[in-house]
């Protein structure tokens, strides 16, 4: 298991190096001057030269890459051109919104999907199953911003249980912050839960047809015991895969929901940085997201091995 973890960690590190080279190359080395791009069409040559100087674009690409990568390793992501503050600071503020939101949504989606998928699989072919399949189909089809607006109308405007948007920050305690994230997390979780429940259902149905389930029943386990004790863990591999993919998406893909609820999250930051042509922020954010995706993949790999002992020996 330790060797498995180490080998995965090594591949994680390698992936990061490769990804950083690619990102750096795409944004800075490939023809097209970042400085003139950032300043727009009407910039004077002097302004462009000044910005090139400020960005350090006159140094050799290898030296610039090393400086950039080395800076990131020490937490120095450079300074935002538009906001005039260190990128690290900017990202950290937003991360404190997006990361809890993504985790919250993921937890909700898993909590909803697990029982729903289990029930649908256990009652396969029944009216309950058809009902669940229909509902999840709808959950996938409904755009989440529409569902978000519906939530706002019902719970914020009519019932006044939650505020319609905004984020109070974590300084005032966890309570208000979590409350502010509840509706957006729910809006994000619904389609994810629908997908997850369907994946779990089909994985469970396949697992329930396996010989070892019959063995378990022959030992005297009830259908439910056999499902929970034997089928569920074996059905987890595809479910973990989907959870991993969903987390990566939730971290940065929540931009529409962030807009609906006026949340200062990473998605909006990326959007703003791109519209303002702030390549320094874009570069750092892309790298950060790549890091998040690779890290999640690593964790999912470890979880696979935790679930299935047969995977621990394979490297």
């Amino acid at each position, binding site marked *: 298991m*330790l*060797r498995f973890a*180490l080998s995965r960690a090594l591949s994680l590190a390698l992936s990061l190096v490769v990804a950083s080279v690619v990102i750096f190359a795409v944004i800075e080395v490939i023809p097209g001057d970042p400085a003139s791009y950032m300043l727009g069409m009407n910039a004077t040559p002097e302004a462009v030269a000044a910005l090139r100087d400020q960005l350090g674009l006159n140094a050799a690409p290898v030296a610039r890459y090393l400086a950039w990568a080395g800076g990131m390793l020490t937490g120095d992501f450079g300074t935002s051109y538009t906001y005039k503050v260190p990128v690290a600071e900017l990202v950290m503020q937003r991360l404190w919104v997006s990361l809890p939101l993504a985790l919250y949504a993921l937890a909700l989606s898993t909590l909803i999907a697990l029982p729903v998928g289990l029930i649908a699989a256990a009652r396969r072919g029944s009216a309950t199953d058809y009902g669940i399949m229909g509902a999840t189909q709808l959950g996938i089809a409904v755009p989440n911003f529409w569902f978000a607006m519906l939530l706002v109308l019902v719970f914020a405007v009519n019932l006044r249980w939650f505020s319609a948007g905004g984020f109070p920050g974590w300084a005032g305690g966890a309570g208000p912050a979590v409350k502010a994230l509840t509706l957006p997390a729910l809006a994000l979780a619904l389609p994810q839960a629908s997908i997850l429940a369907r994946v779990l259902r089909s994985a469970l149905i396949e697992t329930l047809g*396996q*010989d*070892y389930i*019959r*063995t*378990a*029943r*022959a*030992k*005297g*386990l*009830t259908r439910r*015991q056999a499902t929970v*004790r*034997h089928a569920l*863990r*074996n059905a987890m591999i595809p479910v973990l895969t989907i959870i991993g993919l969903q987390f990566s998406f939730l971290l940065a893909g929540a931009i529409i929901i962030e807009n609906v609820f006026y949340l200062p999250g990473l998605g909006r930051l990326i959007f703003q940085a791109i519209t303002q042509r702030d390549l320094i922020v874009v570069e750092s954010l892309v790298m950060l997201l790549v890091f998040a995706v690779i890290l999640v993949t690593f964790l999912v790999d470890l979880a696979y091995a935790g*679930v*299935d*002992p*047969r995977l621990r*020996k394979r*490297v």
Partner: protein
Amino acid sequence: MIRLEALSLDIHDREILRDVSLDIAPGKVTGLVGESGSGKSMTALAIMGLLPRGSVVSGRALLDGGDLLATPEREMCRLRGNRIGMIFQEPMTALNPVKTIGAQVAETLVVHGKARRAEAWEVARERLARVGLPEERFALSRYPHELSGGQRQRVCIAMAVALHPELLIADEPTTALDVTTQAQILDLLNGLVDEEKMSLLLITHDLAVVAGTADHVAVMQGGRIVEQGPTEALFRTMAHPYTRKLFAASSHQPERMAQGEDAPLLEVRDAVREYRTAREGLLGRPGRFRAVDGVSFTLGRGESLGLVGESGCGKSTLTRAILGLDTLQAGAIRLGGQEIHAGPHLDPAIRRRMQVVFQDPYGSFNPRWTVERLVAEPFHLMDARPEDMQGRVAAALTDVGIEPEAMGRYIHEFSGGQRQRIAIARALITNPDLIVLDEAVSALDVRVRAQILDLLARLQAEHGMAYLFISHDLSVVRRVTDRVLVMRAGRIVEQGETDAVFAEPAHAYTRALIAATPRIPADWQGGRDA
């Protein structure tokens, strides 16, 4: 112990069982014999109350006067694993891959509330030791994938007998195992019956297995018991024609003549194939495993050569190398004087001179292709597709006894035996010099197997190709080959004329294999010609 009275079963309006009446006597072994689809397993599942959805049962299955068929599910859960245990055919998939063997055995006790966790593990330890898996060598923390098929079947038995049930149902418990392992498992089951005064319902397709084990035998055909009685008396009389047919098929000798010429067709010289195994420890060096260790033999044109050995002996690796699917590290393989190089360099001209038929008639076809396309596939080894392709497919199908009109159909529409015929047609289509039959009849019922063996003998007489007949089933190899190779741990330990090897095996391993093969006592076979 258990009495079945006029048990009938329909699944989705299909008749599965009709009027099955059977007494399973306490402390005895009851054998239930029949071909696939005869209803053996469904009889067992009816007793267990584990029939598939859509089942409609009638009749009674009495245990101590109570009818199991009328017992509510909650009660049945208490009976299963407690008073009636069951083991199944396929030990490779019968255990949960993500739970340790100790946990799986202990679970039987825990779900029945017979023991707390710690005690349950103690019992699991003791039961696993009883079935031949002592903790010193097989830690309870092992996972199923760390055990062989025979060892896994032992775990299944430990699980089924953990609570000392009065009846153990064993559904083809040794069919997936090697002969020597089969003998050990049958010994173990017999020992448990004696020691624990347990009843055993032994379900099998193999008459020889019941002959050596059962006290009472019932023969099933088409959902009915056609004949039953004390084992010896049943074998001596064989009152029902179906029993006689089954018996005749199981010892069927295809008519064939030795055809081998001296001209060598396939020459294997000092073949070596090694695999890397997992590293030991964090920084350990990867181990090496020699699957094929210096194998040499020659196969003459038109000859039938048997290759026998148990799982893991290197048969499959050797086969892959011969077919050019796997490279050798040392040695050489030549077909008709041309060396076989595995991989992209393999000359299609060589490749089309040898074809293969695999064991599994269900897994070795693309389900989305028509029979015509399946059979014509080897033509891609030709430089150009022959113009009369369809005619040649039709001829090949006719040759194996399938009507050419079947060309437009898909493989799921055929039975196991028909599929194996189609696989043979696919192998014939390029007029090969050599057909490798890799356990090609092992998955078939005895009567179908007899037909396929006849077919193979006829095709060889007509076309004169050589067979490399790979099997773990000695009795079949004995009947259809001219010479035989006995393989063990990557080496050929004995080779020679088939009759001579079987009559006077020189190597201890060959002797062990022959001794482990179950057989019907010769003096029981009086009813054979009746």
